[in-house]
């Protein structure tokens, strides 16, 4: 059983951020592992552990399970990749080069890059987060499945892999407290929802001096050229949203503001006293 987990280092807007041109001013961005990917990693590691345990029980020699992560990102992202290695991922691949750095990485471009890595790795299961918290496209996983010609399921919060039958049973989280139960043939790409498992803390092992090196790939290594990351998208503007609701702010010291809220609650008739 081989699992490939696609993870992204995401940018988060820090308090008091400013916009510069068509994006947040870089000085106001903090980087880290995408929240959804944390669950994808945990799901992948758990699936692998389950196969390892089953092999141990059967006294089979070597379960032959591996969890590999792939990330598209600059050198800075290696810090994030290390945290993933410390959470039980066996090997990590980072895709980047100057052409990729210069591109507007849209869903199609990411799809081509990840598909090339998947073609090399030949995983049984590919996991991604439902969405990345920065650009919130929520599309790469399912697009990748189509590119690879394999099955998929989006917004998954429970997975049971049946290796013998080469299929996975999943719960898809729909709107309004309803889940869909589905079955997909393997190999498959699943996009994993937050809350689906309890992600483990990073263990210090993966961080040591003899930590696994992060394998690097550029377009040429993947048999692609700059055409693979050409994009028809052009960012034309960025602003702070204005929903047209005017907000009344309570001023003063903490007690004065609290008194303002208390008076409002009394006026609204939702509290007495």
């Amino acid at each position, binding site marked *: 059983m081989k699992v490939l987990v696609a993870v992204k280092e995401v940018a988060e807007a820090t*308090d008091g951020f400013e916009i510069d041109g068509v994006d947040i001013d870089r000085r106001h961005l903090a980087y880290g592992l995408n929240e959804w990917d944390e669950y994808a990693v945990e799901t992948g590691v758990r699936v692998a552990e389950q196969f390892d345990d089953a092999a141990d029980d059967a006294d089979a020699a070597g379960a032959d399970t591996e969890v590999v992560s792939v990330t598209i990102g600059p050198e800075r992202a290696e810090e994030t990749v290390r945290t993933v290695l410390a959470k039980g991922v066996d090997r990590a691949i980072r895709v980047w080069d100057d052409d990729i750095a210069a591109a507007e990485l849209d869903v199609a471009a990411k799809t081509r890059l990840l598909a090339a890595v998947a073609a090399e790795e030949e995983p049984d299961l590919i996991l991604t987060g439902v969405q990345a918290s920065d650009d919130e496209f929520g599309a790469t996983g399912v*697009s990748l499945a189509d590119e690879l010609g394999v099955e998929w399921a989006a917004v998954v919060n429970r997975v049971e892999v049946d290796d013998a039958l080469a299929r996975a049973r999943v719960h898809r989280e729909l709107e309004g407290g309803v*889940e869909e139960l589905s079955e997909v043939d393997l190999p498959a790409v699943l996009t994993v929802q937050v809350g689906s498992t309890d992600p483990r803390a990073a263990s210090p092992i993966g961080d040591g001096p003899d930590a696994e090196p992060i394998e690097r790939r550029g377009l040429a290594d993947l048999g692609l050229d700059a055409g693979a990351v050409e994009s028809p998208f052009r960012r034309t503007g960025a602003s702070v949203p204005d929903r047209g609701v005017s*907000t009344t702010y309570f001023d003063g010291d903490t007690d004065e503001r609290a008194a303002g809220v208390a008076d409002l*609650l009394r006026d609204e008739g939702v509290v007495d006293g």
Partner: protein
Amino acid sequence: MSADGDVAVLGVADHRRGELRDVSFELVTACRELADAVGGELHLAVVAGDVERFAEMLDVEGVDAVHTVDEGEEFNHDLYAAATAALVEELDPTALVMPNSVNGLDYAPAVANALDLPLVSDAVGLSYDGGLEATREMYGSKVETTVAVDEEPFAVTVRGGEWPPTDAPGEAEIRPFAFDADESAFPSRVLGFEEVGGGDVDIADAEFLVSIGRGIEEEENLDLIYDLVEATGATLSSSRPLVDNGWLDPARQVGQSGKQVTPDVYLAIGISGAVQHVAGMKGSETIIAVNDDPNAPIFDIADYGVVGDLFEVVPALIEQFE
């Protein structure tokens, strides 16, 4: 109305367990505006289930034709992806518009990739002047960006709740679309549904909700919120991460995957205001937000705001009722 001109937009309806979902009618509004800008007809597709009844309901103002695909009972992504792709090939629209619902997430990217269409997901605004420019949010709704697409045709998914629904009756032509699918041969199967998040509390009925978010930081700190709830007689609800962490019962979760609430007062404490949370509470009569980040998107929809540290504001508020 006769539907035989150029198809500017093909929109795909969303339904589940026998009901068209609201986003279908909002999508019509978005699609009609886009079709007018592009100059051409608006066609809709409805796939699986009771398609004839759905098509009649979708025959609203501005729709030129509704194509029905009478295969399968419920959403299945293999069916949706194949039927949508076949319709695009048949109709050759400039724009393919799908909902950014959980089911939309499960087939729209596959269709776009299969047809090699650029995909803009989760659009909150669309304009067209010789080319598409879409508005979408980023960074947890803190920033709104516009993106131009220099290619046609293109695919878009639209966010629910952003366009008003169209429900005035229309004069669309309803056309069965011959599409043969052998569902038993699909590599995916939908086996059923399960309701989750039931529980003792019914936050949907409460008139005053105190709703707590990840700003609370630690489970132990919830005692502070329990004190506030007791002092005010409010009902406790929350954003998703607290439920994901196992700190609160799923029945208390407000939002897209939790409950929709419409209390008289919704007091959001340490909640950023992500779109999936807002989907569950924007119908509240009065929204009050307490957050230490003045840029938190929750302030974009709050009627009243306190910019401040909840660990100072909440104790002071409790004191007001002692």
